[in-house]
Every structure is written in structure tokens, then in C-alpha cells.
């Protein structure tokens, strides 16, 4: 019997996924629970295990294709449940074509190869004179690729905007705009950023920290530290450590707005923005308040590596209570990030640069950096924000990592 392999629901709010790479080809044997295909969602990349044991007869979904949950992506001929005639067939037959569906199973409602249409969609098709050809062009976004009301309405909008009559192409193709398809990650970022800006009244604060001592210590001890602990040490680990301490001193920053009251989080689950090839992910260091500098450095290294390899699990990216972003690595000296919804604040650490500053009424060359906080003004006010920043600043300026 040929079994349809469908795209599984990969997380609570995941409704689609992109086919990454097929690990099996038509004709290959696959065991139950053996990885069959790599899937990419807006949150994580996962290997999908085969739901059945048997032989892959057809790869339906192509690599790079984005499909809704429930869509058929492959067909596998299951072991031991072949058609009744199987006993008479020699076992070494070449991969059987999928069994022809019995005619009764061809749903009468199926139209133009676009699957079953809901009564409303049928009515809209009728009312707007949508042809079978046009219908085939509509990309269904419902369960199993079903064409929904919204799909039809969107199509109609486009159709009105650009009539189907083929217009002559503009003469200068070189100047044409290019449209880059939205990856799930891009789409997720777009959605979350818009939502954060729409719902959260952002306010900002920036302080300057003199990290000359930190830079000195880092330059002198980095290698020894890395040898001793077997972990890469970055400035980000210090920033994380300083942020966690400040969050413990100001619990209201480690919080979330709700209409029923401000939710103060019991633990510091520190999200750290990591730039990856096609966007940005924010893996979370859970219970960061329980970790030492070494522990934070180790977890940062591990999460960053997994993020770059696209191997983060759902758990790695969930439950964040505060976010740290480090645009300084790209050279930014002044940043005002968007809050990672629904958290209350995000800390940006900018590039460490040498600058002529006044110290004890003399001009000195010092390593300085900006610390920027974007915060939800509903949750707390500027006074708290700046006191929080000063706490981070004080930790970084007083840094004596040997004692930590």
C-alpha cells in the first residue's frame, strides 16, 4: 500500500515549512523513524522521521518549496501491505508505480486538479468567473494546500490590479525590479518586528561605558582562559554577564506587559541575537542567572554554533525573557533595536572604539562603547531604564573577571 507522507505540525504556531534537503530518493528504502527529509521552519530546522517503513516511490515536494502543514510531500510503499496481488508478483519487481486510485475515490468535487473547494470558494469562483486555468495558479494556503477564501480574495485583488490580459513586456528587462521570495525566516522576522513596533511603545536610553580595563584584561588573559576552560571567550559573554546581574537588580526589566498586570519573570532566560545566513535567530540561555562567566561563554559558543548550522531545537528558541543584541561586531556605534516581542526590553552593545575622552580634567585615549536599551514604556520608565544601563556599565567598568 502506498502511504502519503504529510508535512507534520512542527510547533504550536507553525503552519508551514520549507523542504530543505531530501535524505532519500525515489526507490530508496526507509525504516520507520529514519530521517527522511530536512524541514525548515521560521523557528528551527529539523529532520523529519519517516512515519512508516518501506520504499520511497515518489518525492512530491521539491527542495525549497514552502508548504502548509498537512500537505503531501512524499509517497512511501509500506512493507507487507502491498495490494492483494502482491503474493503472485516476484519480489524483485522494479519500484511499482503508485496504485491507480479506484475511480470512486476521485472526489466529484475535485475540480481542475486543485483539490476540493469549499462551498464559499465555489461560489466566489462562480461569481467572479474564475477559470480553471486561473484556479490552478492560485496557491492554496489552507490545510493540505486547500484554496481558502483569503486565497481567492487575494487573487481577485491582484487580478483587478493587473488584468489577466497579457500586456506587452517593458522593453528594458535590465532595469526590472527583482522580487526575492520570502523565506519563512524572513516572513517571521517581518511579522514579529511589525508586531513589536505596532503594539509596544518603544522608548530608548543610551549610556557610554569606559571598558579600557576590560579590553586590557581580555587581551592579556583570553588565551589562558580559553586553555584553562576549553571554551571560546568573547566580549558577548561579559555583556551577557553584566546584563544578567543588572536584570537581577531590576526585576521589572525582566518582565512582560499584560493588560492584567506586569508579569515579572522568575528566571532570566537571556535571548542572544545571532546573525545567520538568511536572517537572524535568537537562541535562549535558560536560567542565565545560575551561570558563571565560563558557563555563559560555553553556552554562547554552543548556541551560536548550532544556530549557524541550523540545528537549533524549538526549546532553544523559546521562553526568552530579555534579549541581548550585539551590533557592535559589525561596527555599529549607536543602535536602537526593536524589542523582541513580548519582552519588556532589549539591550544593544555597540562597538568598542578608542576615543579621546576627558578623565580627571585631562584628555585620555580610552576604549569606550555605547550601551543602548529599547524598552516598553508601559512596563517601566526612563529612570529605571537608565539606572539599569548604569548597572550594566558599572559591572563592565569594574570588571575583574578573575573574581567571577
Amino acid at each position: 500500500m502506498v502511504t502519503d507522507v504529510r508535512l507534520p505540525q512542527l510547533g504550536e504556531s507553525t503552519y508551514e515549512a520549507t523542504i530543505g534537503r531530501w535524505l532519500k530518493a525515489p526507490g530508496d528504502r526507509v525504516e520507520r523513524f529514519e530521517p527522511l527529509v530536512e524541514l525548515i521552519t521560521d523557528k528551527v530546522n529539523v529532520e523529519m522521521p519517516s512515519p512508516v517503513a518501506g520504499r520511497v516511490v515518489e518525492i512530491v515536494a521539491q527542495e525549497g518549496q514552502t508548504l502548509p502543514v498537512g500537505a503531501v510531500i512524499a509517497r512511501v510503499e509500506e512493507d507487507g501491505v502491498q495490494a492483494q496481488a502482491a503474493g503472485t508478483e516476484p519480489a524483485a519487481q522494479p519500484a511499482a508505480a503508485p496504485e491507480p486510485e479506484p475511480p470512486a475515490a476521485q472526489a466529484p468535487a475535485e475540480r481542475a486538479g486543485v483539490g476540493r473547494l469549499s462551498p464559499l470558494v465555489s461560489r466566489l469562483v462562480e461569481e467572479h468567473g474564475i477559470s480553471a486555468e486561473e484556479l490552478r495558479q492560485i496557491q492554496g494556503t489552507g490545510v493540505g494546500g486547500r484554496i481558502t477564501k483569503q486565497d481567492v480574495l487575494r487573487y481577485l485583488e491582484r487580478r483587478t490590479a493587473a488584468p489577466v490580459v497579457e500586456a506587452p513586456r517593458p522593453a528594458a528587462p535590465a532595469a526590472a525590479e527583482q522580487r526575492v521570495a520570502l523565506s519563512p525566516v524572513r516572513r517571521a522576522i517581518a511579522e514579529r518586528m511589525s508586531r513589536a513596533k505596532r503594539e509596544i511603545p518603544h522608548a530608548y536610553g543610551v549610556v557610554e561605558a569606559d571598558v579600557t580595563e576590560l579590553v586590557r584584561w581580555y587581551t592579556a588573559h583570553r588565551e589562558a582562559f580559553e586553555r584553562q576552560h576549553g571554551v571560546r571567550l568573547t566580549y558577548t559573554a561579559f555583556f551577557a554577564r553584566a546584563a544578567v546581574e543588572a536584570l537581577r537588580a531590576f526585576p521589572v526589566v525582566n518582565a512582560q506587559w499584560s493588560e492584567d498586570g506586569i508579569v515579572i519573570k522568575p528566571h532570566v532566560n537571556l535571548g542572544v541575537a545571532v546573525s545567520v545566513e538568511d536572517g537572524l535567530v535568537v537562541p535562549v540561555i535558560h536560567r542565565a542567572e545560575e551561570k558563571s562567566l565560563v558557563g555563559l561563554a560555553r553556552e554562547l559558543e554552543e548556541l551560536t554554533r548550532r544556530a549557524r548550522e541550523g540545528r537549533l531545537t524549538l526549546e532553544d528558541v523559546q521562553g526568552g525573557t530579555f534579549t541581548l543584541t550585539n551590533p557592535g561586531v559589525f561596527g555599529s556605534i549607536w543602535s536602537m533595536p526593536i524589542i523582541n516581542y513580548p519582552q519588556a526590553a532589549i539591550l544593544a552593545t555597540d562597538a568598542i572604539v578608542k576615543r579621546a575622552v576627558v578623565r580627571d580634567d585631562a584628555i585620555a585615549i580610552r576604549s569606550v562603547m555605547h550601551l543602548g536599551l529599547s524598552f516598553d514604556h508601559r512596563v517601566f520608565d526612563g529612570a529605571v531604564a537608565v539606572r539599569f544601563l548604569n548597572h550594566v556599565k558599572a559591572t563592565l567598568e569594574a570588571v575583574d573577571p578573575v573574581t567571577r
Partner: protein
Amino acid sequence: MPELRYVDALNRAHHEEMERDERVVVLGEDVGRKGGVFGVTQGLYERFGEERVLDTPLAESAIVGCAIGMACNGLVPIAEIQFADFIHPAFDQIVSEAARMRYRSNGNYGVPMVIRVPYGGAHGTALYHSQCVEAFYAHVPGLKVVAPSTPYDAKGMLKSAVRDPDPVLFLEHKRMYRLVRGEVPEGDYTVPLGPAAVRREGRDLSLFSYGWTLHEALAAAETAAQEGIEVEVVDVRCLRPLDKDTILRSVAKTNKALVVYEDNRFGGFGAELAALIAEEAFEDLDGPVARLAGPDVPGIPFAKPLEQWYWISQDKILEAVRRLAHY
């Protein structure tokens, strides 16, 4: 306007109706001296005396039977059944006598009577104090069956029920008595028995409910909105007569329908709503008519985890909303 609890709104309606019309009498188990086990009839005995506020024996068939006799002879009884679970002995009186009196007497007799029934599950109420009985009675022509879910409606609809010339089964979800508050005007006003109420406007799907699950549904709709799903929540509030227009208009707008009720799923009142929508809104539907209801077990279990398993929680509603929205 003062904020009242659901139970207080009902109490006010009793006081005002008994004051307005001396034919109105109250009878039931412990409704007099005790003021009702839920306190709905408090103060009536002291104010209107034992001739108009009658403590009865534990015999539901007799309570309803007597009330029918009173109603046929010029009184306007409000009969309280202490818990919906105990209404079954009175089934024959309600269905075979009260509901068909007008029909069988060719309009010569009516039964202007209200039967008030606390129903539904609350914490630890288990098999014998949790039942939902609306489906049994909504099935019967000749009865009106209502289930108000706000204090405003509780007072206004009880007054309408008292003034109705025919028998009205008045369902009060017992979880609402002390949990649900709302603005209730002082003095006389009525809410007609019939129209449904759109409690929240939405564009993505229509959710139909009544009683306690309506409140859970409103909370779930709030969360759904944060996810970008706009749920239109319709308080059915009158199960019979049923406001088909409001229901069908809502489905025509959102094109998806979810029916939520606490009773067992199979053959519950929500099945009638689902059938109505499937029949009369067919061409408006962009998804299957969905039902979320209690599991088909003989009663709400006492054990906490099983009780949770039965209840139609916000989370279950939210999950059903998401499923249908993304269909």
C-alpha cells in the same frame, strides 16, 4: 449603573416581579426560609410571606406539577429546581403537560410559568450536580429555553420569562452566580426572549456559545486576537426560540463557524446549531462547521485531573479556534 453579581441580578428580578404582580409566587426546595441553596431567592420569604414563597418537599415532579396547576388557575409561579441533575423526575410534567397545554386546549389554557434551573459543572460538583439538560428540553415544541450569561440579561430575561404567557425553562450556569459581574440598571427593564447577542465582533470565524462557556470563549477570543485571529463571539442566550438571523448573518460575514457547548457532544444543543448552519449557510462556508463540546461520558468526573479533562477550557477553545482559522 451598579455592578451586580449574576446571583444578585436574579434576586432583584424576583423582588421586583413579586412586588409588581401579586400573582407571582415562588416554590421549590429551600427557596423560602433558607433563600435557596445558591441564595437566589434570598429575602423573598421575609418580604412576601409563606403564602407566596413556598418551601416544598424533595419531589421535583410535585414542584412542577403544582406549578402547572397554579398557572392554569391564574397564578404566575416561578419554580426552582435545586440542581438540573434533579429535574428528571419532572420531565413528564414539563414535556407532556406544561409544554403542550396551549396546543391541546386549543388555546384556552396556557401555562405562564418559569422553571429556574441551575446547571453545569463547577469545581468538584461531579456526577450529580453538574449536568447540562438543555438539549432534552430545547427539543420540545411549546417550551421556551433560555440561558442568559450576563447579569444584565439575567434580570431582564427573568422578567420577560415571568411575563411570558407560556412555560419558560430558565437555565442558570452555576459557575456564573458569583464569578460573573456586570452592570445592571436599577428598576424595571426587560430583555426579550429570542434575539441572540454579538458579544465581540470579528472577521475570521464565528463562535457560538451560551452560559459559562461563553465567558471562556470570550477570553479565548482575546488571546486569539493577539495572534491575529479575530473571532466573532455570539451569545446564543435563547436556545428556543432560536435567533436564526443573527447566527446566519454572522456566518455570512466570517464564513466559518465553531459551536462551543459544555454538554456531551453527541446530540447536544450545539448539534442543532451546527445543522442549522450547514443547511442554511452552506454556500457561505469556507470550512467545516466545527463543534467543541464535552466528551461523551456519563458525567463530569469528580477527580481533579479528569474534571479538567472534561471542562471546555479557554485553552481547548483557543486550540479549536486556531485549527478552524487555519483550515
